[in-house]
């Protein structure tokens, strides 16, 4: 063939999808493919792709703004354990969220949010009937660790509050907010597993009672001895933590009893 013609074909071969659009389209293909699976509820409705060409403008706009990587990160937000993008969500996205948690209060909130995310994933999988034993144990264990950190950090805040009590008269309200968050966490936990065993509900109910007492102790002490109120609030929050943990452990017992035993021993050791 003539060299000129070879050149023409060589030039034509350079026609490719714009890299950013290609990345976005890849995610769309994956999501659409999952839409064909009855197990995935967030199925993208089947449409005539040919006629809906205006959507491409949206792809390109997204591509320009997020330049590929952020687009993937965004898509990963809805991923679930076992899916390709889940590691992006856990490793990348949540690291970014942690980096942006600058104040002590936001770092405490971060732990509550992470527990909330793991429970939320468990909830979605539970609703789909895809919450297998391994994944369930793993998610609840992670949620539990976050709640533990939440309580630990609340304790740290308590120490700070006590130290800065005289300088910071608003310390009471700060701890009050933390206790309220604790209550929200317990409430959402209860909502999520209301269909589950009765003893879990009872455990969560007791946890909420404890948190209510924590709030009450703050109210009683208001205007009087803030330090004591803060200490009682934290003690009660800790009790709530223990109760939530108990409720979670009830849920994961059925699949791996030996693991539960091991965890129980470990937790016993931690408490000592």
């Amino acid at each position, binding site marked *: 063939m003539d060299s000129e013609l070879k050149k023409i074909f060589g030039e034509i071969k350079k026609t490719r999808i714009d890299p950013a659009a290609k990345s976005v389209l890849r995610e769309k293909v994956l999501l659409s493919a999952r839409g064909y699976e009855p197990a995935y509820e967030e199925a993208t409705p089947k449409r005539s792709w040919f006629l809906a*060409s205006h959507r491409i403008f949206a792809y390109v706009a997204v591509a320009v703004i997020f330049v590929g990587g952020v687009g993937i990160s965004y898509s990963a937000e809805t991923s679930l354990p076992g899916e390709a993008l889940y590691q992006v969500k856990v490793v990348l996205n949540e690291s970014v969220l942690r980096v942006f948690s600058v104040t002590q209060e936001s770092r405490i909130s971060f732990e509550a949010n992470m527990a909330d995310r793991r429970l939320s994933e468990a909830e979605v999988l539970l609703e789909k009937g895809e919450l297998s034993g391994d994944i369930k144990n793993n998610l609840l264990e992670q949620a539990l660790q976050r709640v533990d950190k939440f309580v630990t950090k609340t304790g740290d805040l308590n120490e700070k509050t006590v130290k800065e009590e005289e300088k910071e008269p608003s310390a009471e309200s700060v701890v009050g907010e933390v206790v309220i968050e604790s209550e929200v966490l317990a409430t959402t936990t209860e909502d999520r597993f209301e269909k589950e065993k009765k003893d879990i509900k009872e455990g969560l109910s007791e946890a909420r009672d404890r948190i209510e007492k924590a709030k009450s102790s703050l109210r009683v002490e208001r205007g009087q001895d803030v330090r004591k109120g803060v200490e009682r609030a934290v003690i009660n929050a800790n009790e709530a933590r223990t109760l939530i943990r108990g409720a979670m452990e009830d849920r994961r017992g059925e699949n791996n009893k030996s693991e539960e035993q091991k965890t129980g021993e470990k937790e016993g050791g931690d408490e000592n």
Partner: protein
Amino acid sequence: MFYTSNYTELAHKHAEELLLRIYDEHSDALYRFFYFRVSDKEQALDLVQEAMMRIWNHIRSGGGIDRTKAFIFTVARRLVIDEWRKKKAVPISSLEDGDEETQFDVADPSADFVNELDYKLAVDDFKKLPEDDRELLLLRFVEDLPVKTIAEIWGERENTISVKLSRALSKLRKDFNKNG
């Protein structure tokens, strides 16, 4: 780290991996195929996605893929024909009379990292060819498919494809020499 123990989940994951591999390796080729068949990039991208969904259906239904390129271009060709029928637009055969010349949307050179002059030089002649000639030349000389494979995709005899290719190439050469 999570592990899937359920067979269906494993099968689903493997199917997804296969789909994404096909996308990673062949989406540009699909895009070229559609881009040089239709008149704009957006439609070409839509068609790439629709083709991937057809490929996905094939994978999910347990269909094997022996020769990926032959398979994806068969899917692509059928898709173009189906979409044209669905739209009840101008029949493909009538596009061969040269009217499509004014409809053809030249790619933005900067987007494809191609020198503007080179690109114009290359595509201006290529775009003047009839629809089927463009497709044949693309499959043979851009995507490097053997004549035998193209004959399978088109559902024609190898000799017929060879003759058509030869004529298409002559037309392109003639146009190029005339303009160059």
